[in-house]
C-alpha cells in the first residue's frame, strides 16, 4: 500500500535534487530547468495531499502554480535571451555586476 508518506518523500527528494541543481550548475538555462523541477515537486506534494485529504483545493492550487510557472518561464527565458545578446554567454559566472 502506497501511503501519503511515500509521495511526500519522492516529492522531497525531487525538491532536493532541484535545489542541488540550482546551486551546482552555472548555465542559466539549466538553472531554470532545475527550478521547474522544484515547482513540480511542490505540485506532487499538493496533489498527494489533495488525494489523501479528499479535498479538491490542492488540485486547484496546482492549476494556479502551473499557470504562473508558464508565465515565469516565458519572462525568464526572455531575460536570458536579452542577456545573451548583450554578453554572448549564458553562464552566471559572467554576471559579475547588475549593470548590463
Amino acid at each position, binding site marked *: 500500500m502506497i501511503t501519503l508518506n511515500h509521495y511526500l518523500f519522492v516529492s522531497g527528494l525531487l525538491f532536493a535534487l532541484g535545489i542541488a541543481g540550482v546551486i551546482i550548475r552555472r548555465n542559466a538555462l539549466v538553472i531554470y*530547468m532545475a527550478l521547474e523541477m522544484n515547482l513540480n515537486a511542490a505540485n506532487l506534494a499538493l496533489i498527494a495531499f489533495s488525494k489523501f485529504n479528499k479535498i479538491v483545493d490542492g488540485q486547484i492550487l496546482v492549476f494556479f502554480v502551473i499557470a504562473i510557472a508558464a508565465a515565469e518561464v516565458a519572462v525568464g527565458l526572455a531575460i536570458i535571451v536579452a542577456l545573451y545578446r548583450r554578453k554572448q554567454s549564458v553562464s552566471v559566472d559572467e554576471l559579475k555586476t547588475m549593470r548590463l
Partner: protein
Amino acid sequence: MLLCGFLVIANRNPVASALFLVLLFVFMAGLFVLLEAFFIAAIQVLVYAGAVMVLFLFVIMLLDIKASERRKLNTVGIVGGVVVALAFVWELRIVLGPAVKPLTSGSAELHGGLEQVVKPFFEQYMLPFEVTALLLLVAMIGVVLLSKRDVK
C-alpha cells in the same frame, strides 16, 4: 523518475538535459494519474511537456549553446549544493519519520475529473482565476518588451 531528475542536473549538454526534463514531466503526469488527478495530469502534459519545454528547446537552439566544456569545476558550488541537498533530505527524514496522517474531513468522493476540478474556478476561486489571466497578459507584454531589440 528521480534518476531522470538527477540526469537533468548532471548532464553537460543542455539539450539532453531538457529532454530528460520532458521525460521527468511525463513520469510526473503518470504519478498524477495514479493519484486520480486526471485533469491536472492532462494539463501537465500539455503545458509543461508541451509548451514550456518547447520554449526551452527553442531558446537553447536559438542561442546555439555548446555543451559546457570541462573547465575548472567550481568545487565550492558542488560541495555547497550537495550539502544543502543532503541537509534537506535529512530534514525530510525527521519530518516524515512519523507517518503523516491525512485529515479525514473532505468529501468522500473525489475523482479529479474535469467537472470537479474546474467548477470551483467559477464559484469559490473566481477572483484568483481572473487575476491569473491578468498576470498572463502582463507576462506576455513584458516578454514582448524584453525581446525587442532596442527599447528607447
